[in-house]
């Protein structure tokens, strides 16, 4: 295994005093804490930094570590604790759930790694909770939806971590919102011994819809209309989450104008939100010479300048 240079990890020299080590640790912990830093490697970096602090903050543990480091540990590409090595300073406080590296355990004893977070009732260790993202389509939020779910769980067998695949059918309750979390009791990592399994948490993520946009409990649908439909009014068919409805566009409508359709939005605690149809005036891709001529006539007759606001300012 690789020798970990805790001083290098904290960016300090080996003769740094404890208060300055604490300062360096705090600075890096703030930066890499996985509850603050969304980067994928933040958690690993934080664990490394916290492990370094766990060793260097304790006088006895630091002395033992320094000894190993001085006597060549850091030069070995493949580090192994000296034969018969036994730490006198091994036991210490639980700082970050006891998830230490193999390197740490080889020096300070394996007892840390056994103490995973969760209730330990003396007969075993409760399995870890896990969280996975659950993509949910907007259509599935209108009523309770049954969804198949496949995920991997780490299991520990004879000191080895082995992933097992699990598949479940879960009920997503009607009215879930983006970012919500729901819990499946006992579907997390299996417990050790007689201890119960951890829980599985599903982090609900609403899948971006090809047609509808979400705003709170309301939905928006962009309705493309021809310029003459905007000018003269029209009846258009508009999709909703469940069916299609007919919408009347008033004469002289504008691009960006919103029409409200009550009760066709997402489910909320007080009922259903609304659907807003947002008009978007669209030009045809190409026009014939005859149509071009008609536009020219229209331009003369309408005598419309859409940029009068700019001209007033100049």
């Amino acid at each position, binding site marked *: 295994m690789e020798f970990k240079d805790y001083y290098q990890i904290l960016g300090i020299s080996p003769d740094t005093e404890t208060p300055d080590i604490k300062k360096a640790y*705090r600075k890096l*912990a*703030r930066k890499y*804490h996985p*509850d*603050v830093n969304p980067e994928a490697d933040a958690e690993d970096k*934080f664990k490394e930094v*916290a492990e370094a602090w766990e060793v260097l903050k304790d006088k006895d543990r630091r002395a033992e570590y320094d000894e190993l480091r001085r006597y060549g540990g850091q030069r070995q590409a493949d580090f192994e604790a000296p034969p018969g090595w036994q730490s006198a300073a091994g036991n210490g406080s639980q*700082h*970050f759930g006891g998830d230490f590296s193999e390197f740490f355990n080889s020096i300070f004893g394996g007892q840390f790694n056994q103490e995973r*977070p*969760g*209730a330990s009732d003396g007969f075993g260790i*409760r399995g870890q*909770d896990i*969280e996975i993202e659950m993509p949910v389509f907007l259509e599935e939020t209108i009523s309770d939806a*049954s969804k198949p779910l496949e995920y991997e769980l780490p299991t520990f067998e004879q000191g080895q971590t082995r992933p097992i695949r699990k598949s*479940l*059918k*879960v*009920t*997503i*309750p009607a009215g879930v919102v*983006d*970012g*919500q*979390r*729901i*819990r*499946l*009791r006992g*579907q997390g990592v299996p417990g050790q011994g007689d201890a119960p399994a951890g*829980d599985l*948490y*599903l982090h609900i993520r609403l899948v*971006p819809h090809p047609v509808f*946009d*979400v*705003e709170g409990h309301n939905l*928006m649908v*962009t309705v493309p209309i021809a310029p003459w439909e905007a000018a003269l009014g029209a009846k258009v068919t508009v999709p909703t989450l469940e069916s299609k409805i007919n919408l009347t566009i008033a004469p002289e409508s504008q691009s*960006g104008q919103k029409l409200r359709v009550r009760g066709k939005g997402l489910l909320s605690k007080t009922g259903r939100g609304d659907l807003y149809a947002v008009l*978007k005036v669209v030009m045809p891709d190409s026009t014939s010479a005859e149509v071009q001529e008609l536009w020219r006539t229209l331009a003369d007759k309408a005598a419309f300048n859409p940029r009068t606001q700019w001209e007033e300012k100049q």
Partner: protein
Amino acid sequence: MTSTIIQITVSELCEREELSRSVVVQLVHYDIAQPLAGSSIEDWIFDVTTAHWMQRAIRLQRDLDIDWIAVAMLIDLLQEREQLSEENQRLRQRLGRFLMEDGS
């Protein structure tokens, strides 16, 4: 079919996270979390999403060695960041429906 749960009781929460009741009281006191129901501590029930933020708050307080006021501010900001990033994504999607793709 596995049933989903959207609530967690105070005793389950304390057992899961090896918390004392007093830490839960602190979280409620500093408005990091509010119970959905329950008049006394033993009857408190929390929304699972709230419990997620409580766990994050507890980890931050423990790992960064900061006081509860700072944790409460941090949680507020993290929640705001999450909301803003979701809103940003939604607005980009809506904007995309009005703007033409590059080069077309």
